[in-house]
């Protein structure tokens, strides 16, 4: 820190540019929050007011009691939980195998996983739709969970593998000398040590599944089983007219858990995104 400060003294020009940048970049977020707290009747004015006058919580009430919020929140919680649990557990065992055991074809499997990870979501959507249609999984939570597992498992394996690689081999050797079985080495020694990796991977899976709009929009036909992004996007039906204030309040509520995770995990995200964690 101190060396850098000496190398690059803060310059007033840079500070001015940064201030302008911050105002521009923060504006959409500010506008969302501001609109969410503005009474509905004040929202549609020809001259917008930039300060939140008469702030109100009424829009949040509207959003929450809007048809379907609790149903769709439940859908989101079910599929996100399912996706996180399975992607992390399956990823855990696969990562253990791919980092702790040497076997033929390991390198090929790793490259394959990386390739699968890079396949655009839109490309797997069509065949998944067909396969799930045949299997009767369209419009079910199971189908949606499977779709999310397929989009997050490759990364989950890749990420947890890096945590396994960071553990010294002496740990297992010592346990084995003490007479521990392979299973005991895994569950008693290795798994507790990669817990931070499991938590980080869970967060990534959570963000991916929570934010997904396209798959849920395509697969789920029953409105009561929509997930929150689909609920949010269809918030204003042509019949009831656009309630911008309610929509912005809903957007704030929906974004909140993700924003909290981002703020906490900002540093890890920079590394994780480079490995393709969050699909664009």
């Amino acid at each position, binding site marked *: 820190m101190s060396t*850098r400060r000496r190398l*690059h*003294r*803060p*310059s007033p020009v*840079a500070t001015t*540019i*940064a201030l302008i940048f911050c105002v521009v*970049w*923060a504006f*959409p*977020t500010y*506008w*969302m929050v501001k*609109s969410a707290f503005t009474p509905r009747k004040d929202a*549609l*004015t*020809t*001259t*917008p007011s930039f300060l939140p006058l008469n702030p109100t919580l009424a829009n949040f009430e509207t959003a929450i009691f809007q048809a379907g919020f609790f149903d769709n929140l439940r859908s989101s919680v079910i599929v996100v939980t399912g996706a996180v649990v*399975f992607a992390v557990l*399956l990823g855990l065992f*696969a990562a253990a195998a791919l980092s702790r055991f040497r076997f033929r074809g*390991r390198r090929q*499997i790793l490259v394959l*996983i*990386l*390739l*699968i990870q*890079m396949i*655009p*979501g839109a*490309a797997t*959507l*069509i*065949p998944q*739709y*067909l*396969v799930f249609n045949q299997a009767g999984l369209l419009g079910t939570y199971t189908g949606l969970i499977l779709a999310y*597992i397929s989009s997050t*498992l*490759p990364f989950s394996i890749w990420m947890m593998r890096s945590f396994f*690689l960071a553990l010294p081999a002496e740990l297992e050797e010592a346990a084995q000398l003490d007479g521990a079985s392979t299973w005991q080495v895994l569950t008693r020694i290795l798994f507790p040590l990669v817990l931070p990796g499991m938590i980080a991977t869970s967060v990534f899976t959570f963000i991916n599944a*929570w934010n997904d709009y396209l798959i849920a929009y395509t697969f789920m036909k029953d409105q009561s089983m929509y997930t929150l*992004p689909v609920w*949010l*996007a269809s918030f204003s039906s042509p019949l009831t007219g656009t309630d*911008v204030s309610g929509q*912005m309040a809903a*957007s704030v509520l929906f974004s909140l858990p*993700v924003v909290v995770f*981002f*703020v906490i995990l*900002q540093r890890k995200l*920079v590394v994780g*995104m*480079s490995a*393709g964690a969050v*699909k*664009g």
Partner: protein
Amino acid sequence: MAPAGIVLAAVTLIPLLVMVYMAFTDYNQRSLFTGEYSFVGFAQFTGILTDPEFWASFVRTIVFTAALVIGSVVIGVGMSHLMTRLSTTMRTVTTIVLVFAWAMPNVAASLVWNWMFQPGYGVMNWILTQLRIFGDMTNTDWGADTGLAFIAIWLLVVWQAVPFIALTIYAAETQVGSEYIEAARLDGASEASIYRLVTLPFLQPTILLVTILSVIWDFNVFNQIWLVSKGGPDGSTSTLGVFTYITAFVGLDIGAGAALALITALLLGAITSVYIRNLIRSGEDL
């Protein structure tokens, strides 16, 4: 490994094989119910490759992706350098602003955009009108004009893409050896030439990495286009992804959609292989 392998195969590899197979059939809405379809072979691909609409969206995708990548990488690299010149407080503020823009789910961001650019009441329409450069834009309908729709979507995607790039490059920029910069300064180099001759070469691999990732991500931008313009007016803002989606799920010509998806996957596969080769060369131990 075994359970994960089976699940991965079931949910990824099998659909991929199905996609390749379906790309050669005329699978459509009727087939979804009856299961009947016939094999059309390469006629599918000649059909697509002679369709002017395909080429229009192909060119559109390339140009739009280029515009997005250049915009976000240039602004991101610039911001990263700017952050090295800020006081700790100002840098923290900038980081928080960046993280907030980055974190907003793109469905929510698209709705915010629709609201900011809404004809009649949109705050951007109001601001642009006040600038008195473009005339009265109060009632401008951004979604109804191809150029304006692209500008709005470009702003939206770049707004959310810059934070990752800026923070990644900044993380790399803090690793530049201070002795090189000091030596260059002692030799009387200007700040601009220090950046060009010392910092940039050091950042080059990271910039390449974020550029490749940006190409992959921007090529696949879907939600923002779908929610802001639906690919309209008249399909004039539909990129390959939107074109594929409309073919498969609105026109329910699933065979042709699969063929389009296959073409897209092959295009991206070519870009991805560059990325993977890079990753392996950079010493990732497999």
